[in-house]
């Protein structure tokens, strides 16, 4: 290759030119580094990098995390922070003690098809990682937390299980290899085959750790472990009933946790870590380490809560009943589903979650062979004014059309819905028009089917009830 001669240019000039070029390229995406001004860890009012450095001397890891120790491995050294939580520890309103109630039934409900019903408490490996990105070989796992129930001597001298949290921290990128090596040694992934308990670990944590091990020429095998991924049951049980299914929402809505002020959000974690790398000020790590610890302890608390609920050792909150009902329904146990949903409907305030639960209860009844119990629920739901009532009418029409082939009945429901959508026009013309258009298609189809059914009387269906 011929490269262009830039004879007149000195090395310093080349350098400056390339710098300017990089600055131009990098000016495009907006950086997202500064911590919020009111954060307890942000000492400068605006959090500008230089102010920060000028105002406060960087603090070393051991100053900020007194329990941190250096851990030597074949792949170098990393930092490990170990904390033991007694079983009286509360996550929100949920004590860890309830972990004792976890039974095969708990696993059958939360992680069917994993073959973990027989697992012993000590085999569970709660795990959560903090990474510098969501994917790809350039995103590293710089902090890995594990939690295990281990036998510990209590303060009163007796021995009993306690929740031991270990956090493996890479204080610089090369230490990630040691983080993995230490983790693999302690967790005994290859020999003892623990059962992972994570939140979205199937999709993220386990494959990520295996990928990172490859980057460091190690073999891990997290992806092959048996796995209780709590994201799946939370989605099945509570999607739509909460703002989202992110772990922090479960922590507040299900466990009743109050988030600490100034807590770092997951999206800001990489930025804080990169700032730490440049400034070496360990205070920047505090919110990340706390966040990571809380997430792992919360996993234990969620498992404990469902154990206690299924063992009927804890009175369910409305959301618990919703989740239990939906999880049972997903397994095909419609009678138990109906019982839980019934309880939820009885206590939930009139809101979107209640309407949805009411319909699910109706469905559970119907699937359990109790259509007689379903119909009044539909009628109740349909009585609700505005859009919720419209939705229910459509559900009623669907059920009548598809389950019972009662086309005239379905048509009547749709026509009622059209009337109501038209009435809505005075308050919200756009929504009204959208509903009327949507209902027109359904009505046309039902009219066709009703006419055809009328022409072949042999296939008519009896009245509802």
């Amino acid at each position: 290759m011929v490269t262009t001669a830039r004879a007149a240019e000195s090395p310093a000039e080349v350098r400056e030119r390339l710098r300017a070029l990089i600055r131009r390229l990098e000016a495009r995406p907006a950086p997202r580094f500064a911590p919020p001004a009111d954060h307890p860890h942000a000492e400068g009012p605006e959090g500008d990098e230089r102010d920060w450095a000028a105002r406060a001397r960087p603090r070393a890891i051991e100053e900020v995390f007194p329990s941190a120790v250096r851990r030597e491995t074949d792949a170098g050294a990393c930092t490990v922070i170990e904390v033991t939580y007694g079983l009286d520890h509360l996550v929100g309103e949920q004590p860890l003690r309830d972990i004792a109630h976890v039974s095969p039934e708990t696993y059958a409900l939360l992680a069917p098809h994993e073959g973990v019903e027989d697992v012993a408490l000590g085999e569970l490996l709660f795990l959560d990682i903090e990474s510098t990105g969501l994917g790809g070989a350039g995103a590293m796992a710089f902090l890995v937390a594990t939690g295990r129930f281990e036998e510990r001597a209590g303060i009163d001298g007796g021995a009993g299980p306690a929740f031991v949290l270990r956090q493996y921290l890479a204080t610089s990128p090369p230490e990630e290899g040691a983080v993995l090596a230490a983790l693999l040694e302690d967790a005994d992934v290859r020999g003892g085959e623990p059962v992972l308990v994570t939140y979205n670990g199937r999709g993220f944590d386990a494959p990520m750790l295996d990928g990172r091990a490859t980057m460091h020429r190690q073999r891990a095998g997290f992806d092959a472990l048996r796995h209780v991924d709590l994201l799946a049951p939370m989605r099945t049980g509570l999607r739509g009933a909460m703002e989202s299914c992110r772990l922090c929402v479960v922590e507040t809505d299900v466990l009743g946790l109050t988030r600490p002020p100034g807590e770092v959000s997951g999206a800001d974690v990489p930025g804080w870590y990169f700032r730490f790398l440049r400034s070496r000020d360990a205070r920047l790590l505090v919110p990340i380490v706390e966040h990571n610890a809380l997430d792992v302890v919360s996993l234990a608390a969620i498992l404990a809560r469902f154990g206690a609920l299924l063992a009927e050792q804890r009175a369910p909150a409305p959301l618990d009943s919703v989740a239990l009902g939906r999880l049972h329904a997903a397994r095909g146990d419609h009678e138990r589903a109906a019982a839980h949903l019934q309880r939820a409907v009885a206590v939930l305030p009139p809101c979107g979650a209640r309407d949805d639960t009411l319909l699910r209860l109706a469905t559970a009844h119907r699937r359990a062979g109790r259509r007689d119990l379903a119909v009044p629920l539909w009628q109740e739901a349909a009585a609700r004014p505005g859009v919720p009532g419209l939705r229910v009418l459509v559900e009623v029409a669907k059920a009548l059309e598809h389950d019972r082939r009662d086309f005239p009945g379905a048509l009547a429901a749709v026509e009622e819905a059209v009337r109501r959508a038209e009435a809505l026009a005075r308050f919200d013309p756009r929504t009204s028009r959208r509903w009327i258009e949507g209902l027109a298609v359904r009505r046309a189809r039902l009219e066709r089917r009703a006419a055809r059914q009328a022409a072949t009387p042999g296939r008519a269906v009896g009245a509802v009830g």
Partner: protein
Amino acid sequence: MALVDAVAALRSDPDLAPCFVDWRTLLAEAARFASWPDALDVRIVEALRLRGIDRPYTHQARAIAGALGRAGERPRDQVVVTPTASGKTLCYTAPVLQAILDDPSARALYLFPTKALAADQLDELHGIVTDAGLPVRTFTYDGDTSPNARRAVRTSGHVVITNPDMLHTGILPNHTKWVRLFENLRYVVIDELHTYRGVFGSHVANLLRRLRRICRFYGADPVFICCSATIANPGELAEALVGRPVDVVDDNGAPRGERTVALFNPPVVNAELGIRQGVVNATTAVASRLQAAGVQSIVFAGSRTRVEVLTQYLREAKGGRPLHPGAPPIVRGYRSGYLPKERREIEAALREGRLRTVVATNALELGIDIGGLDASILAGYPGTVASLKQQMGRAGRSSRASLAVMVASSSPLDQYVAMHPDFAFGESVEAARVHPDNPIIAAEHLKCAVFELPLDADEQQDALGSHTPDLLDALEEIGTVHRAGGRAYWSSEAYPAEGVSLRLGAEQNVVIVDQGPPAAVIGEVDRPSAMTLLHTEAIYMHDGRQYHVDLLDWEELKAYVRPVDVDYYTDAHLAVDLKVMDEWDATPAPAVRGHGEVAVTYLATIFKKIKLHTHENIGWGKIGIPQDDLHTGAFWLTLPEMQSGGRRGQTEAALQGVAQVLVNVAPLLLMCDPRDLHLSVQAKSPHTGLPTIFLWESVPGGVGFGEHLFRETARLLQIGLGLVEACACSEGCPGCVGPPSAPGAGVKAVATEALRALARGIEAGAGVEAAG
């Protein structure tokens, strides 16, 4: 034989014969065979025999033997350069299958420039493997691969067929998911190597640097097998892309039937103005004669609109109607914008002889298997000799005789070719250039490389070219790279590959919806083209059918059309305007020049309705689409106002002439593809206040060509002068200052004088700087 008769008829046709300005016959060449390399497994030999291949051609045998390697020797990287339809695929299929039979864990990666070619290759390889019952799994991996299938491709595919874009954003950044592939990678196949030139090629060269790094990490050292159409410098291009010397195999042993080559310059229809018959009508005249004689032809039309117009004309012409009413059409269009399924159907119909004529854009120029056709007709010069040869090579297969005709348009370049047949039919072809060390391109790929794997101390010197150390320092300063323990780590949450597109242009497409009923999506067109093809009230042609565009929803990127039957088509005018946004550097008088960022705006202004066949203008309308902008890098150069003695027309002529020379030679200096650079001329630029020539880049943001030209202006002018002075023409031609607008205009003289003056001015400017 139909073709011989048809050629004779063309040569004696009283209307057409006088317009053929050149006929030549390229003699048939007999096949030269060799024997299979000893190392080749009998199962492969047998599988190939089943497909009718008893012996390899000489070039195939050499390439296969080289890629397999002699006992005890490392196999060698190959680039196979032979014409269309000479059995290039076999050159890599055989060694790859051999490696997999020897070791079932062996893997191969195929890179094709487009998804369509990848799909085609998958079918072919699948055919061989299935016929022979070989235990070889082949998959394509691209944007169409379903998430569920991806896992299987990653772990169990022996041959993974993909494209550079997918390697760039999907595979390399996630290499830890591809451990099985990389640990066992024996061969990397790069087909259509000649397409990797210019900016795209420079990106691919860096992509391959990254690929080789990842291979080294997993302890693999794959052999590269490249295939290229005929270009002047295949070995140099392959070496620049692969990063090490490559054996060139260009001894073509494939037979070639006799090929008749002709140049058709349409008749002059207005002698006073020197206007010739339009290329569409002329092409229709030639192609319809062949069609009527039962000759299977491919017609290459320059643009998508032309594809549709020609498809319609040829359907109406003699021999263009199916034998039975209601039978499938025997004339079809083929271009991007057709859905993949439709394209596969057309390709199959061509191979099976169910189509008589296909009208295509250069989408069919690359190696998609459509079998051998009898004739290839080019509606206009495709822009490069390499493309011309590819398109002509689409006719003829093995020993059958074939015909290739280029129909010249009235553009100066086409007319130049028509006057100089040796230019087109001679031995010379263009060289393909890449510039992997371009700092902007290298910087983008350096980020990707650090993301993929931390750079160790050695790699920090030159992993992505000579600028690597400086670029790394700059990235560290900004914080996207963090150095620790002697290595450079990625320290940003960004996924750098996503921010870097290997190709030009926006990826947004406009979806074309036939409102029905039933409503159906009939195709997609890229955004810039949609401005002129799919504006409201346009007649959009798709597969020879006319659609009226009722509404172009520019926000939603949807065009709502309905089928119509009208006797006109629409032709839209695109106005291109250029403004200097930011001047990065400039020199003062006497030689004012500069570089910086420019905003180029495209605005579709009006459209005309043009009557079919007579081409009368029967109406017009305004196009209400907001303009589209491109911000990119540019270099500009001004001409001093002519001395008081000079006439205004002379300044204009000099400006046009110099501009033409510079845009011709700039790619030589930049080693880029001519398509990467555009020309705008402003008689009095608002920015400089002087007659100004702008050379601007196709890539959004630019890759630094403007700055390069600014620094090397003296050399640019020197090369330009050399070209003009060496050119044999007397009054200017497309090869130098452009053809004269009228005889005696003296373009060449004034442009040469202006070039000399500019060169002197730059020298003087340099003197002033040195003195100050």
